[in-house]
């Protein structure tokens, strides 16, 4: 392999990029908009659930319940309605997701130390959201019951008791349960796939379409030199994207990438190489820019987004999709990033993910080289 040949292809590829800045714009605008879009819009956290109240009771006790509910960060009381029928209207229209209906006599029952039902209606059209909301509601009612219980004991001159099971739950790795901390690494994985695979998927197809592949074949240039020269400029574009994403994650979303930077760079470099190899393979096989672009979206962008444990937890996927997920490069990269950023674990625990990506890189570039050599390079 001659570095000079690699350099010549690199320079040419660089000239192409400069000549047609559309691809460069694609390489930076799409990642930027994705960070903003996902970072702001794709918050999986459930907060400020819009809640409406129907208080048929209108006593001190019922107002106390409502006040406690409103003071929780998870619920935002939007207003008071007159009837259950009105609740069904706002749930239908989607202006509120939870309706709490306090029956007449609630205050009387509570004061008399009797159990009193209250009705809660939840919009479950988004099951994920409603599951979380249900959890919040159950927790809220338990806490409120406990309060009332302690008050009851106090009133009757009994000492406060400790609950028999005192569960002390601590969440690790992402103590504030902020989904952003999980989303930013996922976005970086998707962005690299877009910048890396989608752009490189065009570069060999372009040679076939322009007829210049014939020239390439007639030149003293080996398949390895050709592929390397094609990949290097895009490696730097993808790497710039990683750095921009890390920076934006920090500035806009307070996701501080605190762990070892060198390990992060090593993982990113490897993952970029896998993405580039995949793009180049798609390009070599399809020989058409249109087909390559569609193939790249189908094979890189969507799986990285949907099957990589980023948006949907892999454990919930059907068996077939789990198998596919295990050959999606982003799965391993996201695992490494989460390991680095959330768990702060080192290479000792992550080497398997590195090894899988090295294997992927070898297989993908091996296939491209095989095809190109058969083509006369």
């Amino acid at each position: 392999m001659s570095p000079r040949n690699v350099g010549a292809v690199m320079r040419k590829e660089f000239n192409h990029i400069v000549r047609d800045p559309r691809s460069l714009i694609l390489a930076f605008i799409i990642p930027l908009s994705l960070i903003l879009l996902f970072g702001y819009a794709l918050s999986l956290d459930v907060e400020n659930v819009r809640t409406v109240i129907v208080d048929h009771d209108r006593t001190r006790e019922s107002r106390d319940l409502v006040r406690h509910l409103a003071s929780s960060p998870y619920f935002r009381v939007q207003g008071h309605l007159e009837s259950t029928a009105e609740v069904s209207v706002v749930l239908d229209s989607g202006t509120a997701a939870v309706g709490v209906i306090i029956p007449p006599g609630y205050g009387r029952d509570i004061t008399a130390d009797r159990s009193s039902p209250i009705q809660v209606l939840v919009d479950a059209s988004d099951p994920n959201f409603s599951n979380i909301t249900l959890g919040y509601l159950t927790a809220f009612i338990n806490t409120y019951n406990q309060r009332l219980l302690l008050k009851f004991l106090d009133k009757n001159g009994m000492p406060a008791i400790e609950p028999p099971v005192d569960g002390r739950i601590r969440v690790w790795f992402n103590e504030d349960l902020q989904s952003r901390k999980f989303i930013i690494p996922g976005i970086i994985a998707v962005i690299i796939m877009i910048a890396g695979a989608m752009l490189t998927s065009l570069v060999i197809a372009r040679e076939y379409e322009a007829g210049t592949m014939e020239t390439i074949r007639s030149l003293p240039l080996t398949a390895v030199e050709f592929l390397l020269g094609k990949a290097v400029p895009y490696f730097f574009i993808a790497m710039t994207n990683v750095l921009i994403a890390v920076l934006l994650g920090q500035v806009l979303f307070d996701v501080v990438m605190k762990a070892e930077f060198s390990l992060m760079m090593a993982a990113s470099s490897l993952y970029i190489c896998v993405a580039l190899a995949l793009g180049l393979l798609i390009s070599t096989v399809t020989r058409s820019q249109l087909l390559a672009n569609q193939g790249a979206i189908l094979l890189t962008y969507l799986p990285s987004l949907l099957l990589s444990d980023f948006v949907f937890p892999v454990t919930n996927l059907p068996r077939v999709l789990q198998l596919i997920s295990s050959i999606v490069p982003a799965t391993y990269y996201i695992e490494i990033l989460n390991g680095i950023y959330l768990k702060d674990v080192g290479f000792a625990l992550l080497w398997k993910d590195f090894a899988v990506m090295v294997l992927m890189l070898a297989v993908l570039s091996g296939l491209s080289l095989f095809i190109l050599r058969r083509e006369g390079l």
Partner: protein
Amino acid sequence: MTPSSDDAILVQDLVKRFGEFEAVKGITFSVRRGEIFGLLGSNGSGKSTTIRMLCGIIAPTSGRARVAGYDIESQSEEVKHSIGYMSQKFSLYEDLTPFENIRFFLGLYNVDRSRWKERMEWVLETARITEVKDRLTRDLPQGWRQRLALGCALLHRPEILFLDEPTSGVDPVTRRHFWGFIRELSEQGITVFVTTHYMDEAENCDRIVMIDLGTIVAQGSPAQIIREVCPGSEGADLNEAFITLMARSAP
């Protein structure tokens, strides 16, 4: 580096099959150093397949060939260093300038860096495109682009120049210029291997091989072929000879 014999190209029983289809059916010929050699045939006769095998672009199914003394299969890199190739379709980068195109070729051929400037200027002057070297190649007229492609193929002073249908779609004046230039190259000792289906042009060749459906139907100098194929008919040309041959081989 140089082959010992006087033959720049030696072809022996060369066969190329694409699946069931046999494009080249075992051809044998040789090209002498410094001559202008024409490979003639109608479209689909196997011309391009042959030239692409000789340039190391596709591998032959069987048979052997040596180009500039190197085996086309086992030494294809060496072959590629010793030849210049201009394909049938214009195949330089249209979105790059002539300057950038030449730079690319300079980087890939074994041209010493100290000679880059001189070679760059030589190509630009020979192709008469010095003043447009920073314009986009796609904006240049067809004839100019063709000259640039020829210049790029000669950049590294190859021993042998392969031209696949170099004059298709070129006007008569440019064509005359082109053949004058080829003659000059040949006088400098460069072997020129040309494929064409224009029989009038083929008169410019020192020697000719005519192929049809992948087999050789005639070879020799233009005059020789005319004499053999059309004996007795005064003023016959290659065109007539070719048509006669085609009629003969038709079933």
